[in-house]
């Protein structure tokens, strides 16, 4: 009985999953560069997941919505600055472009940071006080994720008279016109890619310095290692948790701006969900709980996904990242850089 089925399974395989390595070889560098740009965005969002997991052992499902609200935050800032939808900001000249980029990023970070802290205060704090098991935390996180999505989907358009939110994506405001700056081995590097990768690296570096060098950073690592003893040493656990959510939110806000630079049409209520899950895959790939792991995992996943897209066909992009996640969790649950913040979790 299995004979005919096995034959048809193979027939099925080659017809729908094409396997052209040649296409990969042909535009290898271009894919790598685009992959890195995308990966940098994954990395910044992944930091949010890693920090919260390190401190609270909780997958903050709603972090993807914090990212999405960051997108709407920076978009609203641009509208307030007078940019009409589909009017392009870059027409104002370099200096003004920087100023607008800066303002948009700051507002995006503020919105995301505020939402992340508010989320912790409303959703997770009452549960922590009731000493709830982790299953309960996770379900609340999923609930919060839906509440934020549907808020932007239905209620935000009512509040803003149809300007923000709603069924369709926001009409794009292009901040930077993409121009090819230079090429590496034939792969063209546009200024947008440049801005994304450089800002991501700098923000990541800042976060790393903050976690490893400053007083607050030590507080975060202490609580991650052993909350009971940390509180004995005078570290206020509540402050540290709020700080962790804040940093995660701020970085997600920055990532939101960089994402809209690359994909101006991406601002929609459901824009964050799948990207958030990918970012968590990246955090796990790099080693959950480990800041540098999240950054490395993000870049790696971005590139791997791009290769998978070309080799197997763009329909298989999400499948590639999920398969990578499952393999990593089975082979090496602690991820590439292993967990340094807290105990190994399998």
């Amino acid at each position: 009985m299995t004979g005919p089925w096995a034959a048809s399974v193979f027939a099925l395989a080659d017809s729908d999953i094409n396997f052209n390595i040649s296409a990969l070889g042909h535009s290898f560098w271009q894919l790598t560069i685009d992959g890195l740009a995308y990966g940098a965005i994954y990395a910044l969002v992944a930091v949010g997941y890693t920090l919260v997991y390190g401190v609270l052992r909780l997958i903050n499902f709603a972090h993807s919505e914090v990212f999405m609200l960051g997108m709407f935050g920076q978009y609203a800032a641009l509208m307030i600055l007078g940019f009409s939808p589909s009017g392009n900001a870059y027409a104002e000249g370099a200096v003004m472009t920087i100023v607008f980029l800066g303002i948009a990023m700051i507002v995006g970070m503020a919105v995301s940071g505020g939402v992340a802290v508010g989320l912790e205060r409303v959703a997770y704090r009452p549960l922590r006080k009731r000493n709830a098991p982790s299953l309960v935390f996770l379900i609340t996180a999923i609930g919060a994720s839906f509440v934020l999505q549907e808020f932007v989907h239905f209620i935000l358009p009512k509040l803003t008279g149809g300007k923000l939110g709603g069924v369709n994506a926001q009409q794009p405001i292009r901040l930077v016109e993409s121009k090819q700056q230079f090429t590496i081995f034939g792969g063209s590097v546009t200024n947008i890619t440049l801005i994304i990768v450089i800002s991501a690296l700098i923000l990541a570096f800042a976060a790393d310095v903050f976690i490893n060098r400053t007083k607050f950073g030590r507080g975060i690592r202490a609580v991650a290692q052993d909350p009971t003893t940390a509180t004995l040493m005078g570290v206020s656990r509540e402050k540290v948790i709020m700080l962790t959510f804040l940093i995660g939110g701020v970085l997600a806000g920055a990532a939101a701006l960089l994402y809209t630079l690359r994909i101006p049409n991406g601002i929609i209520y459901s824009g964050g969900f799948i990207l958030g899950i990918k970012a968590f895959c990246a955090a796990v790939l790099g080693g959950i709980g480990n800041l540098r792991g999240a950054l490395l995992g993000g870049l790696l996943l971005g590139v791997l996904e791009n290769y998978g897209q070309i080799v197997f066909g763009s329909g298989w992009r999400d499948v590639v990242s999920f398969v990578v996640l499952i393999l990593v969790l089975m082979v090496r649950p602690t991820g590439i850089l292993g967990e340094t913040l807290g105990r190994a979790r399998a």
Partner: protein
Amino acid sequence: MSERDRPDHENPEFGQVERSEWDSEEAGTGRYEAQQASDADEAVVELGEFPPISELESVDLSDVDPALGDPKLVAEMVAAQRETHVEVGEALMQMRDVTMKFGGLVALDSVTFDIRRGEILGLIGPNGAGKTTCFNAMTGVYRPTSGSVAFDGVPLGRLKRNQITRRGIARTFQNIRLFGEMTALENVAVGTDARHRTSVPGALFRVPRHWREEQDALERGMALLEFVGIGQRATEKARNLPYGDQRRLEIARALATEPKLLCLDEPAAGFNPSEKSALMDLIRKIRDDGYTVLLIEHDMRLVMGVTDRIVVLEFGKKIAEGLPVDIRNNPAVIAAYLGVPDDATA
């Protein structure tokens, strides 16, 4: 030279909790418990507490099974029926110069002693003497770096924990780990299931073996509850039982697995004197019923009162073995516990 145990976040109580004594090295099953450490400053609120309905549910034992009224019959039902190859008085458990190294740290240094069948052996030593490591090496949770362990004449390989229990070694926990949502009888039934072999399809279609084993679970369960003295509370939820009864339930559950060797890990922690004497009676009753008991305890009065022989560990070495009365006067033991007076240190 403290045991290399990682601190446990899970238990909200203060203080150093020796929890992960069986921290197994199996790949990927590193123990993971939900991050429940509640804030030190907030009171721990029990989750969804239901009003105890104890007085409605005290069970009329004679109604369930007339034999339960008569203690002699109960003791018979509960007696150890497992055929053990070793004769009474022979060495049930043989530890031959077992050494345990964690990296450079020597936790056990060529420890050799036996546990004879039918006796109550005490294992004592100051905090951090390696009692728990020895316990784990003995029960096969750790593989000794060198030396050998034989149980009932068969060398102990590297076993999964549920296989160890089936092999005939049962244990209780220092901090009570009952199945809170299950009733007392159901907790003990889980113990009896260790010996049952009903398969899932068997249970699905209720094959005769399933009925036999269910009947056995009920009878032996009730007998054991009566044996340890909490027969009345069979339908009470484990988490609603008073502390003393929970301790007894844990012993009943361990006995339910029909062990050859019952290991009690500081069973008297938190008991008042009257409860301690009741516990001593219970341990003797268990031994008289044909079980071999290993008692790890700090309370000297309890150890001296109930054990037949005592082994003393200090810094991973066995410093004494013998009858309680000799151990009390043994200078090495006194030095280990009370420290050496200044002038004596040459």
